[in-house]
């Protein structure tokens, strides 16, 4: 007989293990960066523009809201790149045992969060 399965996922009841958290944050960070692409290109344009426009650009990124947005994208990139590198190693069957996988997941979370905090503090 078939077992009764839950008809829908009660998302708030799911307790993800650490590697699961890193994985879903990898997806969320990827989606966030996708949305941010034109704005990041605009920022690159700002750093490459003439002296007067550069001054205006500097004023724009000095605004706390802009800074928070840039830091969010920075975190997304750091987390996504670190977690992505971890996935690339998993793809070639490196670090797949449970203990190593947990440790590397922890490192990915810690490195990207602390680098974001440090760069945020240095540039605020």
């Amino acid at each position: 007989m078939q077992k009764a399965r839950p008809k829908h996922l009660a998302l708030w009841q799911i307790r993800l293990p650490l590697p699961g958290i890193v994985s879903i944050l990898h997806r969320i960070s990827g989606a966030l960066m996708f949305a941010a692409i034109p704005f990041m290109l605009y920022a690159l344009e700002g750093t490459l523009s003439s002296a007067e426009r550069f001054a205006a650009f500097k004023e724009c990124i000095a605004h706390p809201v802009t800074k928070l947005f840039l830091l969010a994208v920075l975190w997304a990139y750091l987390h996504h790149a670190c977690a992505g590198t971890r996935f690339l190693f998993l793809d070639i069957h490196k670090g797949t045992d449970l203990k190593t996988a947990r440790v590397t997941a922890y490192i990915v979370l810690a490195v990207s969060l602390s680098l974001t905090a440090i760069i945020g503090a240095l540039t605020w």
Partner: protein
Amino acid sequence: MVKRHVVGAHYGLRDWLVQRVTAVIMLVYTLGVVAFILCANGASYEAWQELFACTWVKVVTTISITALLWHAWVGVRDIWMDYIQHVGVRLTMHVLTLLWLIGSLIYMVKVVWGVA
């Protein structure tokens, strides 16, 4: 009879590989830019502009950002395929995603090649 689903163009091993190759390209480019910023001690406005005045830097940047946009196409399409069951809605999201990325590609060329 084989039941075929409309999911958009090719997917599977080819795109899996594309996503990994483009990821490595982005990693190498990122390490290069970080190395430059660390060596140039915070990268002054002048040093940064000089860097992007080099044709080879523009070429490498164009390749890397194109890799980024291709990578994002594969990744975001995967996300739509996971969550949107309705074929019409999914195809619409695929098309909008492509327009977003192609627009970004054109803008990128203007940004990177626009400076003298």
